[in-house]
């Protein structure tokens, strides 16, 4: 029984990690007032880049860094379209998803002779035990013998809380998402804040995506990301656009995903089809939005393109 518990915990942590990183990425963008439906695409480009670069350099760390850079690059069109061109942010996000998947699969086919997936990545990230702590029964192997990305995700959560709520940068970013005109009259550069926020979201979501191809899995194909970006978006909303909320929601959704995956090991799927477990994050998010599970209140200026006094 304890084995099962450890197993569930371990899988939860495993699957929650990319969701946490991506949801926190989305947090920056949306807190600055830019809707980010494109998280799915940003994860996709991250997963692709991490796999390809790791294959080429034999270093998953270089792969991860490259993924972060690619995420920033892929987020750039979203920033340009929604901030500079004042395009509909949802449409722009949809286009990012199209673009990322198109570019990734196209390049995979072009690079690997028409194959639909990358070769298997031998040098993935390895689990990193924290000496001493990993010996704690049940939770030790699950929480303290995790992939480096998991530790990274936890650090990102706390760091993001600090940045958003304790530093001038964070306060300005939130002000821009609530009342951009007020921020501008106080000398805050709304465009620059939003650009930075969207690019950060690209970096983090892409790091999350990298976790799918060089930690959890060891290749990239068209279905590597398959909805994880949207679950992260759900986690962000269910977590009420707060770092700890998003962290909790992403962890919980990771739990749901892990149950769906390993449920058959201990016979759970005999009672609940795994698809129902897969649906759980989405159903909960709808309930949260409808106000049945607390009320999720979005930043006031979210989705609204901003125009400076220049007319």
């Amino acid at each position, binding site marked *: 029984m304890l084995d099962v518990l450890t197993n569930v915990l371990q899988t939860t942590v495993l699957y929650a990690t990319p969701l946490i990183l991506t949801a926190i990425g989305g947090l920056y963008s949306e807190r600055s007032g830019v*809707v980010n*439906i494109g998280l799915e695409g940003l994860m996709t480009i991250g997963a692709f880049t991490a796999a390809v670069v790791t294959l080429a350099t034999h270093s998953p760390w270089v792969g991860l860094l490259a993924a972060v850079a690619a995420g920033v690059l892929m987020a750039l*069109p979203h920033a*340009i*379209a929604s901030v500079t*061109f004042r*395009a*509909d942010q*949802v*449409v*722009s996000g*949809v*286009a*990012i*998803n*199209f*673009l990322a*998947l*198109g*570019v990734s*699969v*196209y*390049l995979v*086919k*072009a690079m690997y002779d*028409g194959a639909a997936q990358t070769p298997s990545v031998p040098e993935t990230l390895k689990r990193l035990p924290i000496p001493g702590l990993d010996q704690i029964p049940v939770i030790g192997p699950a929480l303290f013998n995790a992939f480096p990305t998991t530790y990274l995700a936890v650090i990102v959560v706390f760091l993001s809380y600090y940045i958003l709520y304790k530093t001038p940068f964070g306060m300005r970013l939130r002000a821009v998402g609530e009342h951009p005109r007020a921020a501008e009259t106080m000398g805050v550069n709304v465009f620059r804040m939003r650009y930075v926020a969207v690019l950060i979201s690209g970096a983090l979501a892409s790091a999350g995506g990298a976790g799918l191809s060089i930690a959890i899995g060891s290749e990239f194909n*068209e*279905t590597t990301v*398959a*909805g994880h970006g*949207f679950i992260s*978006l*759900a986690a962000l*909303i269910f977590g009420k656009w707060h770092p700890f909320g998003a962290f909790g929601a992403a962890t919980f959704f990771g739990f749901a995903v892990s149950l769906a995956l390993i449920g058959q090991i201990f016979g759970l799927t005999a009672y609940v*089809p795994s*698809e*129902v477990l*897969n*649906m759980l994050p*989405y*159903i909960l*998010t*709808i309930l949260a*939005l*409808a*106000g049945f599970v607390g009320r999720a209140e*979005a930043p006031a200026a979210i989705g609204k393109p901003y125009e400076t006094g220049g007319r």
Partner: protein
Amino acid sequence: MQVQQRQMRQSPLLTSIVSVILGMLVGAVMMLVAGYNPIQAYIALFTSAFLMPYDIGETIRTITPLILTGLSVGLAFRTGLFNIGVEGQFIIGQLMSVIVALKLDLPPVVHVIVAVIAGAVGGALWAFLPGFLKATRGVHEVITTIMLNFIALYLANTLVRNWLSAGSDSTEKIPESASLRWDVLSSLFGNARIHLGLFLALAAAFVMYYLLWRTTWGFELRSVGFNPQASEYAGMSVKKNLVMSMMISGCFAGLGGATELLGTAEYLSIHGSHTGIGFDGIAVALLGANSPVGILLAASLFGILTYGGSVMQFEASVPYEVIRIVFAAIIFFVAANIVRWAGTKFRKKAVTKDA
């Protein structure tokens, strides 16, 4: 007349044409980067879509669901809603029609009609919830419809596995009585999978036009979409119209799913991720400036690119996904309204010059 005149003045045509050209240029650059010859590839693409009667038939078959999902997104846009849930409503349309096709035993013509209606109604009902939540609790439809896309996907998967088949990954083929294929039509196009759904799609385009611009109901739908508060004051029911908009939009999407299943695939299988046809509808509606005629044209273009793209991959070995990149670029250019932007830049310069 009045309607057309107003649409002409906004002149979205130029934006669309420029965006398509720029989008295809982006595709060409991608091909060059990977060492393909873009000119050859595009020639292969466009000729392949029209080469043989079979290709023409298959191209039209590809265009059909794009028209319906495009109309679905377009009608929602026209009434102030962003239906990003076309994908989910499309899946439910497929699911409902396959259930009727497999589980009901009806005489030939009746069977297919009931199956089509079931799909359309399914799509409408799936869109009811986001409409209802927006009307009663102010929840933005973009997020709810995204969530419902996934719920629809998993719902269809679990039903296919556990109810519609004996634990397998796809259902049986539907009986002929429920099929939208028509031998006479197929034989005209070298036995391509072209089907009667095309005429349903064309009819739907006319319905959208007539409903929105020729009837009092359409007047209300548009009015509520543009300005709910003024509409409420003028005596219209905002909630009712909002839910109706969503449901009509979902109805088009469900119809798209039903015709695609009953005409093209003829069975439903488990999907790991979305079909993408619903998301393509967003691109179609945008490029078509949300007008029925524009949507027909845009769906045709995307259909040609999609079908031609797969042949191109086969013949010129350029990966099909380059077409997805072209789509994405076109969406960006239309959404950023590149033409208007260039226009204002130019005007600003002119003003500063004579200053």
